């Protein structure tokens, strides 16, 4: 399948992600922020799809947009709106934020230039996985090469789950 209008979709999805990100930090209403975050996550899923990584995109939608954000909303909804409206927002220190943003931007630019130079030097191109076997490749890496790291990460998550249960429950 040949990709259609790739640059258009790239810029569309990127701008949606950026828009979502900006909305997340500027909305006063926490629920609106959470919804904007979902927009960002979905746009990112779209970008993954464009990178021929459909599995990652699917997982992004299921886990982040469908799972974690629902739980976020679950908690946020219980907080009364009036209270959150009155609360002081933490995004007043815009000078420090600006400095950090500029620094990060500079870093990105530097990496981009440097890698471009490297590519030109060695004639390298980013690895392009065939679309059809991408999911299988991930499986091979996850359960083959990086098995140990994967299992350790799952253990870590298990500990986190137990910790959350302990914290949330008064009596066990």
């Amino acid at each position, binding site marked *: 399948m040949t990709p259609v209008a790739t640059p258009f979709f790239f810029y569309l999805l990127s701008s949606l992600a950026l828009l979502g990100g900006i909305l997340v930090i500027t909305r006063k209403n926490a*629920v609106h922020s959470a919804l904007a975050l979902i927009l960002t996550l979905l746009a990112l899923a779209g970008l993954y799809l464009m990178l021929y990584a459909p599995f990652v*995109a*699917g997982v992004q939608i*299921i886990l982040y947009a469908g799972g974690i954000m*629902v739980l976020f909303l679950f908690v946020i*909804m*219980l907080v009364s709106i009036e209270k959150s409206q009155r609360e002081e927002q933490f995004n007043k220190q815009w000078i420090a934020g600006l400095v950090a943003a500029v620094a990060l931007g500079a870093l990105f630019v530097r990496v981009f230039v440097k890698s471009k130079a490297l590519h030109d030097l060695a004639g390298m191109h980013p690895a392009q996985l065939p679309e059809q076997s991408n999911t*299988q490749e991930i499986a091979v890496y996850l359960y083959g090469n990086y098995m140990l790291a994967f299992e350790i990460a799952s253990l870590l998550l298990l500990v986190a789950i137990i910790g959350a249960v302990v914290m949330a429950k008064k009596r066990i």
Partner: protein
Amino acid sequence: MLDYVTSYLKSNTTPGQAGNLLWAFIYIILIFLGLSVAVIAMNWLERKILAHMQVRLGPMRVGPHGLLQPIADAIKLLIKEDIMPAEADKSVFWIAPVLVVITAFTTFIVVPFGPTHAVTDMNIGVLFMLGVSSLSVLGIVMAGWASNSHYPLIGALRSSAQMVSYEIAMGLAVVAAVLMTSLHGVGLYGVAHGAVGDGTLSMIDIVKAQQDQHAWFIFKFFPLGLIAFFIFAVAMVAETNRAPFDLPEAESELTAGFHTEYSGFRWSLFFLAEYSAMIAVSSIAVTLWLGGWLRPFATWLTGETWDLVFSLFPAATFLLLALIAIVGTLRMPKHPYFRVQTIGLAGFAAVLALIGIVLLMPPVRDRIQDIYWFSLKVAGFMYLYIWYRGTFPRYRFDQLMRVGWKVLLPVGLGVLILTAIVGVLL
């Protein structure tokens, strides 16, 4: 241009994979129309079937046997005053039903009605369907929150907890089925068929795997496939918020749950989304366990005669429906008051008979068969949904959670592990 249009007809992939935008678009339109008709038909059938289960007649006034009732309802909903609560969060209130409908319809682009009858085939097909349908809970939560009222909020909380919980059991059952695609072990018919191969998440390939293995996955590794199917069948009812798991909209507790404050067109969007979500999850179940578009007894009743017999089924169904409609026409009261209705029913019978005759023609017959078997299986699930609703009381919230976490989840894990073990050993 004409070449572009006709070239696809000979191809053996979906328009999405062939990169044929025009046909993809045509398929999208067809699916959209088909779904709308299905939802309307579901509306009428649900009322009729439920009524007959409950010693009632159901709608009888609008059109013969109430056939036009759903259309009348749709018109009523469209021209109703659009009410938005004063204290509601306007934008979220507006987006919520739209989001629910979009997610419900988006899932259908990977539903395989036949080997080529799908908008596209993704290599993460099942994952895509689960992911997108899991987004619909966002719409419900948004609707409940934006209404700024207590009953919808409780409905939304219930719904989010319920859908997130049952998604896990559902996912485990799906993984068990996906695992089976890679395990070419001894099928039900004792035909060893290749070794352990690549699994697949693609909807079309899953059905093809069942075709190759000569076994629907519901019968594979008996009873493992059956148990996995059962888990999915329970979880999917919970996912779609239908009885007996209809707590988010439990009418006797929360008046109408998350859509209490919705009316008119917005409400009808929720209605549309609920029914298309039901069809969507049923499609997953059919694809994963019931052999998708494959006709029944494909391995036992083989040969050209049987192929012909089974290919006549779609036409036979429509002719039977036409016959029922004709009998209904003859049994209509002879009073002049019913004249219009009698003529209407006769016309309906004629349309059904016409469709049946068209379906008899060999080219149409062959192309339509897959879609017919798929739809028939989905319709079976729809009937089950109605049947549940007529039979079961509603679960309580803690019991629902208990069933989800303490029964379905462990059983699902067990089935998954056993499937892996059995698959490797056999």
